[in-house]
């Protein structure tokens, strides 16, 4: 009973939904019908982006209300949320992860590192940006990007 009472007493903490991001739904994502299962892949990030992704799914930003949901296996996923520059050790696993996802699949590169290697450009263990390894459909710039930006990108996938 304690939990139910707590739920009632707390009420909604999520921020009111901001207006729909511009650009509309991605063409490729239309088939998903408003529901996107998301698999996160850390290809070599400093973990800053991970913290922001976690924040995007917390009760305040609540990305799930727009139809995006984190899943534990690429076999279940429609969207790969890739962070960080792709290190040499993660290049092949990233390729395999994307290959393991069912069509239609999208890759979202989150953070400056994922877009152009950011801080780590030229590092000896860095293979390249995400786009050098797998085709990227959407990018979220920022170092790290704010949760709002990540939520906005996911809304462009779910269209809600």
């Amino acid at each position, binding site marked *: 009973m304690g939990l139910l009472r707590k739920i009632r007493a707390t009420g909604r903490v999520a921020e009111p939904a901001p207006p729909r991001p511009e650009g509309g739904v991605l063409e490729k994502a239309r088939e998903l019908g408003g529901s996107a299962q998301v698999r996160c892949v850390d290809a070599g990030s400093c973990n800053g982006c991970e913290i922001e992704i976690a924040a995007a799914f917390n009760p305040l930003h609540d990305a799930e209300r727009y139809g995006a949901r984190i899943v534990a296996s690429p076999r279940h996923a429609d969207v790969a949320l890739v962070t960080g520059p792709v290190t040499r050790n993660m290049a*092949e*696993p990233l390729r395999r*992860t994307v*290959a*393991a996802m069912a069509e239609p699949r999208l890759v979202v590169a989150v953070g400056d590192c994922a877009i152009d290697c950011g801080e780590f450009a030229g590092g000896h263990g860095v293979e390249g940006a995400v786009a050098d390894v797998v085709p990227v459909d959407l990018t979220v710039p920022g170092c790290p990007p704010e949760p709002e930006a990540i939520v906005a990108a996911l809304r462009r996938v779910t269209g809600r």
Partner: protein
Amino acid sequence: MSAIPVALATATGLGGAGALAALVVPHRARVPLVGALTAGVGAAGAAVGVTALTGTHWSAEFPNVLPLGGTYLAVDALAGWFMTIAGAVVTAVAVYGVGYAAGRPARRPAPECRAPGPGVPGPGVRGLGSRGAQAVLPLFALSLLLVPVAASVSTFLALWEAMALGSLLLVLADHRERPAVRRAGVWYAVMTHLGLVLLLTGFALFAADAGGETFAALRAGAHTLSPGVRGLVFVLVALAFTSKAGAVPLHTWLPRAYPEAPDPVSALMSATMVNLGVYGLVRTGFDLLGGGTAWWWLGVLALGGLSAVYGVLQAAMASDLKRLVAYSSSENMGLVLIGVGASGLFAAHGDRPQAALALAAALLHVVNHSAFKALLFCAAGSVVRATGLRDLDRLGGLRARMPWTAGLFALGALGAVALPPGNGFVSEWLLLQSLIHGLRVPGVAVAVVLPLSVALVALSAGIAAAAFVKALGVGFFARPRDERAAAAREAPPLMLVGAGLLAVGVVALAVAPGLFADGLGRAVSAATGPTGGGAPRGGGELGVRLADVSARMSPLWVVAALTAATLLAAGLPRLLARRRRRRVHARLWDCGGGAPTPRMAYTATSFAEPLQRVFDDVLAPEQDVDITPVRESAYLVDRVRFQRSVPDRIEHRLYEPVLRGLDRAGRAARRLANGSVHLYLGYGFAGLVVLLLALTTGW
């Protein structure tokens, strides 16, 4: 003239001919010929059994055949029940055994034995295919069939001992290849003769007081015995018979002898010989002693409950495939003993229909156990023959390499886990029905014991599921963990045919147990007298109907519904998927990190570990971690050795002290025999004087 004596004579003749043929026929033709003759023995025995089950009685006496007592034979429905089982199993296993012993297997049977050099003949000549073992095999099969026919104490004991010796010789067939066989043989010999001594003492007491040693005389004289003597006779005889059935605490020979025996022999012993322990108990307890008091049967029930849970726990812990199957025998015989004990308890309280139901459940479970256990041992034997491995932690991946064997093992395992649609389910359902409805029998002991027994039956069924999921999942699925498992080849056709015959039996028992109901009813009433409508009847649609407690079950429909549901669940998504989109072949998802190696697969030991933790206090596993640091620093680890074993605790606590005591007594007694002839003459003289004194004082 009835068919029984003809069939019995045929079986005996074929058995003798088989033994003779094994001795004179050269190696090449020996195995097939002896196999055919042994199968004939089985078929003739089964014919006797089936005839007896239709209600025909037969008895005969040959006063001059055995010295002293003469030979008395009788066949009734109870004997017929056990003969039918033994005959059917012998026939199937004989066929299997021909494939097993003929020619050279792909691998030597054990990892520790030496490699076959140019001069070393294959096991076609050694082991089970050898002249001696082949000569014993038909005789052992014959003794299995004849033990229920005996109708006097001396005949019974002679046949019983013939069976014990035959099985002992067959267990020892591989003794040249593996030293472990010899140790198992010693254990088995000692235990089985301990049982014989108990039997001898019990029956001698019985016969002396009843005034005759034929079963008819015992039956007639049983009520003249004082209650104390009757109780003593029952305890002695019951201990011997439960030991043969593999129940705790006299079970220790079982997990030793079965794994080390050649596989067809394991199948024969576990599927027919243990049954005869149950036969002996039912014959003496119900028929000869005529029921008895409640505490006898409470003891049997307790022994059964203990065996069921302890056996299945050890099976769940075992990582040796054959040991696992062997311990499961202990479990199933425990369940049978629960049924027998409950039946005796009800009879002692005067509720005949209920007693008949419980005994029927027990006897049906005997058949079911025989069918699936023989099948399991045959399939396990094919695995051992193809890989030379018994260790589940090294097997794996056999489903793809030995699909038929895997299927047969799966069928047997389904029976052993007592879930529908397996055949074990039918008899366990019947057993639970009898226990639950037994609560209407008055008495404090009944009210306390029956719910406990229900719980024990349920617990053992649950753990059995874990044990056989382990055996099947780890042994046959996943990837081979050893190159010998990876190189396994399917068993030769004759072995598959033999096991296939058993599989047919398993399926028949699972789908149409109603077919066996009439014979079962006759066997039960042969043991307990008129049943009063308690025994199960064959229902109209091949089901089982319990007239007395108005419960019914039709396994056929259960099987049909389950099959339909499985097909639907497996087929529907495929159909739908085919309609909508083409299939894509993708790489196995391996977490992106590269293909998993066989070392990453789940092993039998790790599968059993959580269960072992739950039952830590019962199993008392022994664990040993040995860490060696590098020389320079105590903080840097060089090597870690981890060792764990789950010993048989009963053996540990009960047998080792006794053995140590015997050893000490033997050492102490050595001082009495110091080699002096004078002393020995003195012993003889002292003995004579004591004897004469005892005689003159009229003791």
